């Protein structure tokens, strides 16, 4: 009897696991943002464009960091990443009380401090108080510690890489990552996260669901109603409508 139960279970296990894995591939969930969370970023020595020598941990200790990884000859995602980040941060700064700085690091060994200065000039970041641009001495250890692996494309003579923002708290721990060009709301969420604001839960970047109940609003730390919530309120509203209709009909007939 036990054997039969066991073998049935084993078959169920195999079949259902096969199913779930097949489904997952179909779903194509992107969990790369989960990689390396709560590991420490490599404490690389960096040289800021002001000429100051420091390290990532030392800089983070002053204010939590959003680390953006770019290279100056980039003809791809770096420019929109920085432009959008700058724009979003201007929006956020009007409302957000949390402290942070943006650290733009070059991952290209060919980039000099001069190149980074030019970059700062081009994006008009020289006088921005929350922005630091720097070159780093041990690029591979640093990029490895944030699971960032740019690939050199021989044909384009360009690095093929993600638009990655890494949130680092004052102890040097990576608390959140964002991949891709993201909205001001999500950047703001990142900022509250590197300030160690605990939220018991968050959504995974899964394929967009049309009807979610809540969208997390990082500015206030509260959830704002999404379309899904309307579905929870709908039954009550419809009931009121039906009651009104029945009463009007009842009145008419009597």
């Amino acid at each position: 009897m036990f054997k039969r139960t066991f073998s049935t279970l084993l078959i169920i296990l195999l079949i259902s696991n096969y199913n779930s894995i097949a489904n997952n591939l179909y779903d194509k969930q992107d969990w790369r943002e989960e990689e390396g969370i709560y590991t420490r970023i490599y404490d690389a020595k960096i040289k800021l464009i002001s000429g100051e020598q420091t390290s990532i941990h030392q800089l983070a200790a002053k204010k939590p960091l959003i680390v953006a990884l770019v290279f100056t000859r980039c003809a791809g995602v770096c420019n929109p990443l920085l432009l959008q980040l700058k724009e979003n941060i201007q929006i956020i700064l009007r409302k957000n009380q949390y402290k942070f700085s943006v650290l733009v690091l070059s991952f290209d060994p060919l980039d000099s401090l001069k190149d980074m200065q030019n970059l700062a000039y081009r994006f008009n970041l020289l006088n921005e108080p929350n922005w630091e641009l720097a070159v780093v001495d041990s690029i591979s250890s640093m990029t490895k510690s944030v699971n960032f692996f740019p690939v050199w494309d021989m044909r384009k003579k360009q690095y093929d890489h993600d638009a990655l923002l890494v949130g680092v708290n004052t102890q040097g721990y990576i608390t959140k990552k964002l991949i891709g060009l993201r909205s001001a709301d999500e950047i703001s969420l990142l900022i509250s996260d590197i300030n160690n604001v605990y939220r018991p839960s968050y959504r995974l970047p899964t394929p967009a669901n049309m009807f979610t109940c809540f969208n997390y609003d990082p500015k206030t730390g509260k959830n704002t109603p999404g379309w899904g919530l309307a579905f929870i309120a709908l039954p009550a509203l419809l009931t009121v409508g039906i009651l009104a209709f029945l009463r009007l009909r009842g009145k008419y007939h009597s």
Partner: protein
Amino acid sequence: MQQSLLSLFLILSGIIILVFILVYLSSIQSQPQQGMKNPLQKRFWFITIMVVVLGMFFFITIPKSPYYLYANEQPARIVHTVSSQFVFLMSNQDIDPAQPMGENIELNTNELVEFRVTSLDVTHGFGIYNDKYELVAQTQAMPGYVNKLRWKFSEPGKYYILCLEYCGSGHQVMKSFFNVK
């Protein structure tokens, strides 16, 4: 904790049953239609006492809700947990959903651990049991969401994970463990 809740329940139930028995006996033994004197006033006092007692319970228990546990501390450990029919995978590293792999987990006593719990397929429950099989903490594992459960283990030993949300025909065999030293 659970045992004291059971005691509370049994005591309250005992009182309720006793009251109803007394009410029944009063009916059996009564002269015709004496009734309750001033029932509205008694009703008022009964509801007032209920409001006070429930109000106290409410304000005492709400801050103990799991959403506020250790909210102002920095976790020393993150344990990534992925559940799928019918296994739990736990890892110190992030877990790749395309090739989910777990590892043995060893935790230290009194360090703040944050379990980041999610699911690859259906909704599961992540229930942490101690070696005496007492449920100490739990959260749900819902696909598309990550629940963060923060906990400090004061006792060393082996801890078991059991599934606490019905997830299909292997629900009862879904089990894992970790050690606390």
